[in-house]
């Protein structure tokens, strides 16, 4: 039962990440392989505050969210200035740079050894130590994230973003501030990723660079592609399906040495298959 709970908790954390990636990739239409880097920054910020005892969980989470909003806006700004293809380079570069920082800046991140012993989340001095309590918390957090995404998408704001994805120039000609809309979408995506990072670190109690590397970013992108772009359903379905797949792989007898590459191989196959045969994913709109 605990095993199932931990699947649900992780899936709910990844729903927040799925919403974040969907906002950038599905809604605004930017190719991104660097959302795991933002996720990681959120995780390390919360871990550092909690391990040093300077801030308690919720304030630390707020700081992480703000930091990731700023970071994601800065990271996305080049995509507003240069053509989409050049942003591919930016995105890969940022992810590789972030991995280098996570791995080599031992002072802040523990380097390749990671940060052990991150305390569990606490709400107003009441620590959430049991799995079920944490599940309750992540359910509320993912629920709020979904509500925010849904409200944003059905508001004039969501309509504006969808129009921008189709034709930026036409939106500018209609008198709208394209830049502001895109920046705010990047900010929203950053807030989701930062919060997800903080919750992830406190739930796992141990983080290391492998959770925030290029493979992790590819996983996030795969979640959006498989789930489906621009819909709430797609953002929820993607993480739940993608996190269940490794469990299925375990049923097939694969030696543990190749398990990681088998998983990434599967993500690659899914990316190709959905791109060719089902660009709308399981429950979304066409990418």
């Amino acid at each position, binding site marked *: 039962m605990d095993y199932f709970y931990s699947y649900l908790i992780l899936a709910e954390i990844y729903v927040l990440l799925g919403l974040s990636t969907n906002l950038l990739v599905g809604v605004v239409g930017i190719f991104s392989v660097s959302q795991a880097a933002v996720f990681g920054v959120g995780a390390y910020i919360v871990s550092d505050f909690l391990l040093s005892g300077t801030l308690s969980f919720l304030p630390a989470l707020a700081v992480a969210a703000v930091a990731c909003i700023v970071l994601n806006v800065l990271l996305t700004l080049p995509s507003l200035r240069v053509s989409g293809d050049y942003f591919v380079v930016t995105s890969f570069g940022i992810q590789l740079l972030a991995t280098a920082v996570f791995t080599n800046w031992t002072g802040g991140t523990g380097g390749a050894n990671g940060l052990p012993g991150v305390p569990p989340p606490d709400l107003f001095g009441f620590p959430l130590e049991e799995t079920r309590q944490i599940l309750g918390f992540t359910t509320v957090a993912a629920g709020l994230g979904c509500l*925010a995404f849904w*409200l*944003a998408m059905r*508001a*004039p*704001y*969501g*309509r*504006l973003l*969808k*129009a921008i994805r*189709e*034709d930026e*120039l*036409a*939106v*500018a*000609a*209609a*008198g*709208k*501030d394209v830049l*502001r*809309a895109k920046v*705010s*979408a990047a*900010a*929203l995506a950053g807030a989701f990723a930062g919060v997800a990072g903080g919750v992830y670190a406190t739930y796992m109690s141990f983080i290391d660079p492998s959770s925030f590397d290029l493979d992790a970013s590819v996983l996030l992108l795969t979640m959006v592609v498989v789930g489906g772009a621009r819909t709430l359903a797609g953002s929820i379905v993607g993480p739940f399906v993608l996190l269940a797949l490794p469990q299925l792989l375990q049923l097939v007898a694969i030696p543990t040495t190749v398990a990681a590459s088998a998983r990434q191989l599967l993500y690659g196959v899914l990316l190709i298959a959905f791109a060719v045969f089902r660009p709308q994913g399981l429950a979304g*709109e*066409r990418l």
Partner: protein
Amino acid sequence: MSAYLEVSGVNQRFGGLQALNDCGFAIAQGGITCMVGPNGAGKTTIFNVITGFLRPDTGHVAFRGRRLDGLRPQAIVAAGIARSFQNLRLFVDLTALENVLIGLPSGFGEAPLGALFRPFHTARLDRARRAQAMERLEHVGLADRAAEKVRNLSYGEQKLLTVARLLATGAELLLLDEPASGLAAGALDQVMALLRRLQGEGKTLLVVEHNTRVVQQIADHVLFLHQGHLMAEGTPAQIIADPALAEIYFGGAL
């Protein structure tokens, strides 16, 4: 007294190509002005300059006596000038109504904070905006197609929709890039009648048009552009009667 729209001394180079060459003209309020000239005369380029999509190398644009050059497109729409595109640039995955909604001036709920923290207020105001957008659709005769995705509309309906989206901005000077091109006779008459009606409602129109029959029927004034320069202007009859212009227009185009 300064003109309604005044373009003067605009130069624009693209690499080795002088797209606009000391281009200047003025437009009076309330009429339909047609801009004609062979392909590559710089008609779309001057549209891009007026509406802030291109910053010209030199020259300036003034509207109601106020300098516009250097402003961003959204500021120029706010000042009262809006444009359509030759290749329509509709949002084909959105509905007809949603396309018009994007054209309406920015309202509450178009920024994320308002949308997230005052959802009921956002929804209420959006309903009002939908009604407003619906009026624009009725205006061009597309009310019954409001909920249809644009990719399912006919080409003629799409052309009308670009005018509805343009009207939604509330701009008083409308720049239309070939609103009648590619239309069959029935749809053509519909568009021409619509342009006349807009003029009657107080809009000023600057129209790029290739079809001489359309120019003759709707234009109060004609600007003839050649090689990025205003070569001649006058009434449709004057322009069409000039053999030198006809030579450039038809000789140059063929």
